[in-house]
């Protein structure tokens, strides 16, 4: 059974159909890249998987470990192991990062019927992960993402990914707004989390990111569908020829 099974998914936002029958299957241990031009529906797909309000699913289904993901609230999906690394992580003034991390982690554990982390265990875990991502302690005391640079926000997303240990990570345009050094740090963090038990879906506009996070499979999206799938070489092909050929193909 695939970890994530998207079947003939049709999605509307306000009266406009964005996804017109998208199908995608992701197994444990695999890294899939989804590429495509702006407006092809890449981010919509990530939002619908995570459960963001405002999208109307008019057809198809999403199964996660065989369960109907669309029936679950966003927090239930998180507790089941779905993690979306946001393209634009929001700033939450007044909620200290450390407090947020502990509250979120314990909420997920509670939903799974696991015991809550003790404070020393939690601190130890956060410090270890933060250290490996070059995240200074004082950043953890600040409000969530408040005053963080673009690179710091992305590293904070990866920190959460490492803490929550999800089985499916969706990285939405992780490279946007990052310079090459910040990108390398972020990609190293992601690569460290690759595991046979975990799948990743890397959404990106540019091939560049895939030099750092090398995918097993590449899918090209255009106008709300996957129009071509292949191995990692497909990304290089796209870099040379652009997306225009697929726009015509639809």
């Amino acid at each position: 059974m695939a970890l994530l099974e998207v079947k003939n998914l049709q999605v509307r936002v306000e009266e406009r159909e964005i996804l017109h029958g998208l199908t995608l299957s992701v197994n444990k241990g695999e890294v899939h890249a989804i590429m495509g031009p702006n407006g092809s529906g890449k981010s919509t797909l990530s939002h619908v998987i995570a459960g963001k309000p405002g999208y109307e699913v008019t057809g198809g289904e999403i199964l996660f470990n065989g369960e109907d993901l669309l029936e679950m609230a966003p927090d239930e999906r998180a507790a089941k192991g779905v993690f979306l690394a946001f393209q634009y992580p929001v700033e939450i003034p007044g909620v200290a990062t450390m407090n947020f991390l502990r509250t979120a982690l314990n909420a997920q554990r509670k939903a799974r019927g696991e015991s809550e982390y003790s404070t020393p265990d939690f601190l130890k875990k956060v410090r270890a992960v933060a250290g490996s991502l070059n995240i200074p302690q004082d950043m953890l005391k600040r409000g969530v993402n408040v005053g963080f640079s673009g690179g710091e926000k992305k590293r904070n997303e990866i920190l959460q990914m490492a803490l929550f240990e999800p089985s499916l990570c969706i990285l939405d345009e992780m490279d946007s707004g990052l310079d090459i050094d910040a990108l390398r740090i972020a990609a190293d963090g992601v690569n460290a989390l690759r595991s046979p038990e975990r799948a990743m879906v890397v959404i990106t506009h540019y091939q560049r990111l895939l030099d750092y996070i090398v995918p097993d499979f590449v899918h090209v999206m255009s106008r709300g569908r996957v129009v071509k799938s292949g191995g990692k070489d497909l990304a290089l092909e796209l870099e040379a020829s652009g997306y225009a050929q697929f726009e015509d193909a639809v």
Partner: protein
Amino acid sequence: MNLVLAKTDTGQAVNSVFAVARDRLPGTGSVADIRRQAFEAYERTGLPHRRIEEWKYTDLRALMREVLPLAAAPDAKALKRAADAVKAHAVDKAAKLVLVDGVFAPELSDIAALGRGVTVRTLREVLENEKNDARGDLLITNVSDPMLSLNAALATDGVVVAIADGTALPHPIQLIHVSTAASASSVTRSHVSVGRDSRATLVESFVAAEGAKAYQANDAVILWVGDGAELSQVRLMADAADAVNITSHVYTVGTKTKLNLFNMTSGGHVSRLQGFITLAGEGADLMVNGVNLLKGTQHGDTTMVVDHAVPGCTSREIFRAVVDDRAHSVFQGRIIVRPDAQKTDGKMMTRALLLSDEAEADNKPELEIFADDVTCGHGATAGALDDSLLFYLRARGLPEKEAQALLIQAFVGEAIETIADDGLREAAMLAAERWLEARG
């Protein structure tokens, strides 16, 4: 014409209350005259209503309907219930002064713990001391307001606290108002003077004992802060959900004083805290912050008049209201800058968070500036929780109510953080958390 009729209606209802109460009110002679005049001043409007500009969002004629008879002095059973309430709300290390149903309760207070430099008398004691020619002054202020006039007419007791010059109090003084009565009023009036170069922390708590219901509290605090003194005040109003609480603060502060005032209103069916703060000495530094946490059909009004009477003073106001269900929050802030009060720096910011479609918040900031070299500003916002923040938290595993609670805590936290005393800040945060938990 309406006004005259309405005045007669409400006026007479209270007149009988006043007539009934008169004999048991402390103070005779000149004090009784002052009470009668205060009652006449009240009678000119009766309960304030929406056609009185200062009360337009809090129409007591509609919300209160009538002034209830004064509560009887508490008996042993009432004091026992009050003791339980005091225990639950006492602040760590604070010296408690307890008023039960408008009467000072020495057995629940710890005057001995106050230490040197502080004297406490009861309002009753001072008003009844006929050797003191100035005793009637306790019932007079320069503020003209019907509910404050009613307070002067009917005040049964209160505390008169004097902190001597140069006293640094190591622990807070906590004034606890406990109601045990049902369908009765308590009218209290306290005076606090903080001597020159003194430092003090004052906590005020309004609580209901078990069995108290549908009561009305009318409280006034008249406070002076001497030159160079520092005062922190935290007021936690947690009256019964069907109670009325109208409180007036009349504060006058001297040169180079530092004031850090905070109020949290989480109780009461109908409440108003009206502050009249006069910065009367140059270089005074005032911070006055507050939080309203309202649900059900609660109505909570915070009205602050900050009067910059002299040059070079600073005032900062941060208000946060969280309004759920069909509750109604009001914030009226007026900053007055007198003609001579150059180099005034006055700012206020009020924000309301509306948690339901039927929740209502009225924000009315006003600046009255008569000087030309000043920095003044105000801001007001009202809105719902940010959906993008809620989704982010939920995508991280927080259930809806928990995600909301975290954001609400952060929202009110900005005002609560300003409380200087660690223990009191935690107490206020805890009160907010309790409110959020009760929300479910």
